[in-house]
């Protein structure tokens, strides 16, 4: 028998995974998706309680959560666009000049791994000219 507690445990775990992501990731969009995942954890909680109380109040709350999440998505998207236009990056640490007074800035000590070498473009022979055959190819023809 799946009990209320099973759902509560899943919801709490989903919430805390979202919390870890929100605290550690630096990409603004990933942070936002993690916050949405925390909201999903809360929603599971409310629906499970609604089911076990036998009323619909919990489901109504979840509807409002969804509406607020949609508003939040619209505003967050607009803010991310503005921030991205300013310095061409979605890194939240770029904005650490906004931190509190007296807090040391976060400094990245480890260097980033080198970018993978770009694969050279393939050069096709110009159209209309027959390429010269190598000796091996000539032997096969």
């Amino acid at each position: 028998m799946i009990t209320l507690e099973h759902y509560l445990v899943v919801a709490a775990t989903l919430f805390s995974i979202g919390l870890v992501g929100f605290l550690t990731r630096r990409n603004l969009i990933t942070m936002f998706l993690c916050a949405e995942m925390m909201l999903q954890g809360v929603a599971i909680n409310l629906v499970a309680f609604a089911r076990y109380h036998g009323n619909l109040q919990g489901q109504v709350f979840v509807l409002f959560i969804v509406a607020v999440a949609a508003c939040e998505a619209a505003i967050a998207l607009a803010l991310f666009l503005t921030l991205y236009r300013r310095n061409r990056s979605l890194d939240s640490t770029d904005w650490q000049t906004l931190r509190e007074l007296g807090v040391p800035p976060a400094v990245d000590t480890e260097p980033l791994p080198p970018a993978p070498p770009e694969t050279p473009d393939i050069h096709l022979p110009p159209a209309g000219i027959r390429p010269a055959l190598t000796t091996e190819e000539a032997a096969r023809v």
Partner: protein
Amino acid sequence: MSLAAVLAIVGFTLLLPRPRGRSVAGGIAALLAAATVFVVWLDTVYGHPMADRVGTVLFWLFSSGALVFGTILVVQRNPARGAIAFAFVILSTCGLFLLLAAPFLMAVTIIVYAGAIIVTFLFVLMLSQVAGPSNENDRSREPLFGSLAGFAFAGLVLFTLYLSTSPQSAAASAEGAIPGPPEQRLPIRVLAEEERKALREAVARLDEAEARLGPEAGSRDDRLSYFEAIRDMIATVVGSSIPTRDGSLRLRLEHQPTQPGVAPELLRKDEQAQQVLHRADRVQQLNDRTFTAVEGHLIEGKPDRDAVRAQLRALREEVLLLASATELPSRTVANLGFVLYSEYLLAVELTGVLLLVATVGAIAIARRKGATP
């Protein structure tokens, strides 16, 4: 439990992207070990859920899906793949909603999240695609402390849950040592099974009762006794006022609560039990009034047949509502709409205003500086 948390911390620390020391294989192994320990713990503490096979399998499928894809979202380097993983989290959550009898919420969540938010963010990600390693995708902020904070939080919540539901605490509160809040022992069965059955039987008989009002349905005494039987059936549960006596519902709830593990004062304070008692009082009054009218109609023909029929119908509705109290109604969507537009009308209006303000705000914020309108 703490072993699972420690393993999860190790796994997340290893998997979170950073330039050096990231070990995907070790991280996945640690997370798998954490999940195994966690499932074993859940199984031993909350029992083996094997009675309802399909529901059980679906529950484990959806909940593990949500947790696994949530983990992928957190540890994934590529934000576009993270967004896809988030879509799968949403789908799993929607499966859980369906298991919890919330089909409308499932549809709304899929449409709003998977349909709107994910697609919008994929567009933004495409616009801001960076080539090669970058600060925002390949570095994490304090991987160890972040996972520590998150899982310490989870551990605290689960530990509190465990304390409030463990067998020892239930036994202790049954003895009256720890009076806990009522939501710990859900669902409280306010209506006993036989009471529910009697009420449903009364509803079935009320369905046929309208045909028996006319003289063609048998002698007057037969019809009178038929209606009296229905009245008594309802009165045994809700009580009656003509010979003043309590129904079994009030007796059981207020005077001799027999529910195992639920203290008497707990049941009396329970809001749901109070609501059911209130409804039972209404049914009792209606029951007495209706059958007085029926007797009057059958003996003297005083209230005419249409009025009596209307009263019988009203009684039938009320009894049906009482019989299905504390159960989620089968027409969830219709009832959700009803609740939304009666009890929460103001909140719905406020949400509409909020959406409008958000739309205007988003456009105002995202407008390019100096762009000609």
